[in-house]
């Protein structure tokens, strides 16, 4: 496999910089500033210190014994990203980008958020570094992820409600990009996933790769070898790419990205852009996209707000096309089943997003040998979803 992206941010035919001219100079400046930090030892040390002392890394790799026994197949390990400060993997990326913003002299940051996990992680680092913070969030998501909205406000961020479209993640990202076009001279846009124009997909991947690097070390320590299978949920795909990327050259390691099938792949209500979309261009990159035959982007749907996005990171599109990873789907119903299963069997309430990964693990683990190792990325904790779950159960 080649080292990707190329210098223009392409992962083969995917990725790139499909951005308005007003933003291009900022993207080029960001790329240069990021490249500088990659050669800068003090940046790495600073980043590492915050990850360790502030975010609480490394996160544990937990052997889920009861889950393993009940499913009767592969040995299941959970990568506990839910134990990070703020409750999800999102802090890995926001710490990196905020440190970069600080080096670039930016005092204002903005972000889009779906489930609110990235919004909280951004509001957190903005508080930490004394930056002004605006979070764009769809009105529908504000309703279903209320606890995270409160957290962002407590942290001092302004939450800007977005009413356009289905008032979910895609619309929040549209509005954040519009705001950025108007404020690009002094504002840093902290994109939360491995999407957007170059260099974001590469940069976010690199910041999230700490997940996979730790898993590598941890499985070697626990089992003396690499895992056989990796499973992670994919909306934009940052936790999945963070887990997969360090294993990309390990040919024996199988990878599954789990997309949200919502109310079913035979309906229009899902968020599975790789399984149900076509190649297109949105939010600065070329990737698989849910769209109609006229190139209008379709509204995505998932019970998990963080997966409710009609695109997917361009490197996942590349992994799918090249066959490096397999992309499968899990419905709302299966995700709820997994949510309750993990809560009751392991005492861990997973985020609805991560529950999609758990659900797929529950499908494949029984068919695997007991000697095999399966690692699931438990990308976030599920407190934020308590209301959605209770409403659904009382339905």
């Amino acid at each position, binding site marked *: 496999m080649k080292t990707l992206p190329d210098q223009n941010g392409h992962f083969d035919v995917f990725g*790139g910089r499909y*951005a308005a001219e007003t933003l*291009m100079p900022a993207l080029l400046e960001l790329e240069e500033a990021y490249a500088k930090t990659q050669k800068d030892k003090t940046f790495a040390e600073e980043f590492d210190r915050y990850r360790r002392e502030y975010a609480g890394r490394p996160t544990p790799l937990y052997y889920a014994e009861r889950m393993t026994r009940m499913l009767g197949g592969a040995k299941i390990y959970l990568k506990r990203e839910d134990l990070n400060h703020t409750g999800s993997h999102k802090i890995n990326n926001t710490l990196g980008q905020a440190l970069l913003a600080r080096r670039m002299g930016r005092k204002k940051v903005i972000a889009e958020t779906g489930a609110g996990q990235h919004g909280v992680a951004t509001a957190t680092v903005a508080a930490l570094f004394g930056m002004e913070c605006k979070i764009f969030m769809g009105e529908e998501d504000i309703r279903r992820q209320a606890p995270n909205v409160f957290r962002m406000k407590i942290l001092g961020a302004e939450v800007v409600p977005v009413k356009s479209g289905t008032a979910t993640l895609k619309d929040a990202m549209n509005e954040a990009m519009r705001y950025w076009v108007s404020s690009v001279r002094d504002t840093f846009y902290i994109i939360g996933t491995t999407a957007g124009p170059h260099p974001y997909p590469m940069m976010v991947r690199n910041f999230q790769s700490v997940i996979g690097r730790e898993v590598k070390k941890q499985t070697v320590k626990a089992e003396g070898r690499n895992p056989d299978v990796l499973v992670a949920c994919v909306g934009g795909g940052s936790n999945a790419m963070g887990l997969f990327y360090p294993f990309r050259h390990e040919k024996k390691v199988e990878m599954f990205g789990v997309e949200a099938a919502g109310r079913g792949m035979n309906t229009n209500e899902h968020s599975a852009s790789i399984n149900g979309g076509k190649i297109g261009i949105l939010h600065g990159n070329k990737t698989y996209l849910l769209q109609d035959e006229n*190139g209008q982007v379709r509204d995505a749907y998932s019970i998990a707000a963080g997966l409710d996005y009609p695109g997917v990171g361009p490197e996942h599109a590349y992994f799918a096309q090249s066959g490096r990873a397999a992309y499968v789907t899990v419905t709302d119903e299966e995700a709820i089943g997994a949510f309750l299963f993990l809560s009751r069997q392991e005492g861990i309430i997973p985020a609805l997003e991560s529950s999609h990964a758990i659900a797929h693990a529950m499908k494949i683990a029984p068919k695997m040998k007991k000697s095999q190792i399966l690692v699931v990325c438990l990308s976030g904790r599920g407190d934020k979803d308590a209301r959605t779950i209770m409403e659904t159960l009382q339905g």
Partner: protein
Amino acid sequence: MGRIGKKFEELRANKEKALIVYLTAGDPSLAATRELVLSLEKSGVNIVEIGVPFSDPTADGPVIQAASQRALKAGTTLRGVLELVAEIRRTSQIPILLFGYFNPIFAYGAEKFSQAAKDAGVDGILVVDLPPEEAGELRIFTDAAGIDFIALVAPTTGRDRLKTIVQDATGFLYYISITGVTGAAAPKVEDISREVGKIRKMTKLPIAVGFGISCADQARAIARIADGVVIGSAVVRRIDENRANSDCIQTVCAYVREIKEALS
């Protein structure tokens, strides 16, 4: 040279400035857009920019966002817009520029689109999310079809970048007068004057200025600096406000004539 270039030459010879008007195709209907274009031409508009509606117009402000949504709800497609252009071409030689985002073109097929656009009588295209870095995949076909690829220059565009943009530009250069989305704040004339001056030193191509220009005074001031003025959101807003009135077209044309007078 295409219709766009010829129009600017003709205007230059008469010491006139180009009035370029943007309309969202299909708002409120394609038939209405056609009528509007023909009436606007009679009211002194020199070039029309026909917006191809897109579901996620990230460079547009609320007015054009709403217009795009209405147009999409009314069933407007890129195919329909090309048919509209062909219709207009039966009776008018006004230079036509398509303005939009890349995905509808990509879904149509870049090569197929370029041929169809040429056949319909499209003179130029302006694709907001195709900076020079990514424009190649469309330009190989539009250049071959003789369609001008209008490049954008922003207030944030630096000197080196400007050089590259200018080198590859055809038709005219579109200077974005504000750091923002369409129809946002009023532009500052001094800043525009300075930036347009920089572009002039690098190219002989005409320079038009747009985004945020909404009244005759602004248009007059900018016409002293540039070769053309683009009015978009201000026109789209008037179409929306008067959609129910039988004199909608007259109202819009009266506004446009007012701007046109300010340019002369």
